[in-house]
């Protein structure tokens, strides 16, 4: 099988690369000036990373405490966080 670097963890090579490239392209389709593109890319990169870390934590917890109640609770917490973030953004 091919790998980018031999004997590495995908979370330290492929995943960051994916986040950086997606953020850059997405931001460049939103803005024209380089300053705005880079600023938006950093913001989107952080958002993506935080979202993936949150999903990772939920999956990690579920792996150890596998129950339907826990899954529902995690979904509820995530949904509340995103609604709160949206409300805050709209308010500002």
């Amino acid at each position, binding site marked *: *099988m091919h790998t980018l670097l031999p004997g590495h963890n995908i979370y330290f090579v492929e995943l960051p690369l994916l986040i950086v490239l997606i953020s850059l*392209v997405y931001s*460049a389709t*939103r803005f024209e000036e380089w300053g705005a593109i880079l600023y938006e890319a950093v913001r989107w990169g952080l958002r993506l990373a935080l979202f993936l870390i949150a999903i990772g934590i939920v999956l990690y917890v579920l792996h150890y405490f596998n129950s339907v109640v826990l899954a529902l609770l995690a979904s509820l917490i995530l949904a509340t966080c995103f609604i709160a973030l949206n409300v805050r953004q709209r308010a500002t």
Partner: protein
Amino acid sequence: MSDRPSDPVAAVLSYLIPGLGQIYQGRIGKGVLFFVCIYTLFFIGVYLGSGTVHIKHGDEVETYTVSSNVYLPDTHDQNNPFNLPRLAANLYNRPQFAGQFWVGIAAWPAVWQYVNYDRRQEQGDPLLGNFERTPSEAALNAVHTSGDKLLELAWVFTVVAGVLNVMVIYDALAGPAFLSTDTEENK
């Protein structure tokens, strides 16, 4: 949203090669950024999604190769629950290709292999070989079971590259979604 007129020629160029439409419009920096980022994503995906494994069957060693993860298998006769037309049924069975297609010319070998694909034919296309040709089920199973999970990650790269290029095509057609206040005032 930009109020400049639509530029379909640039949109087509950006479909063919990511960023080419922006370069054609004189937005060279952005064009190069799109080109580098999208082709990096796509070809890393192709690289990760290919592989060769050697499996021992008794005394014989069998070699199985998957040359790429960008392909559209002709499987309408094996699974078509909604009686879809042939192409739609094949896309239903492998929806990844609907995303990968938008990367442009880089995905055309898969279209060519799909149109000319013959399961009984051992040799691939005279020019393309087996590149972006549907691998045999035995090869897929062998590479999946003997390799690690990179095959799954690989098609994420290629699909994301294709889907991002849809946004790049739109940027070439109608401009960026938001313009800064400074640019708006200058108009």
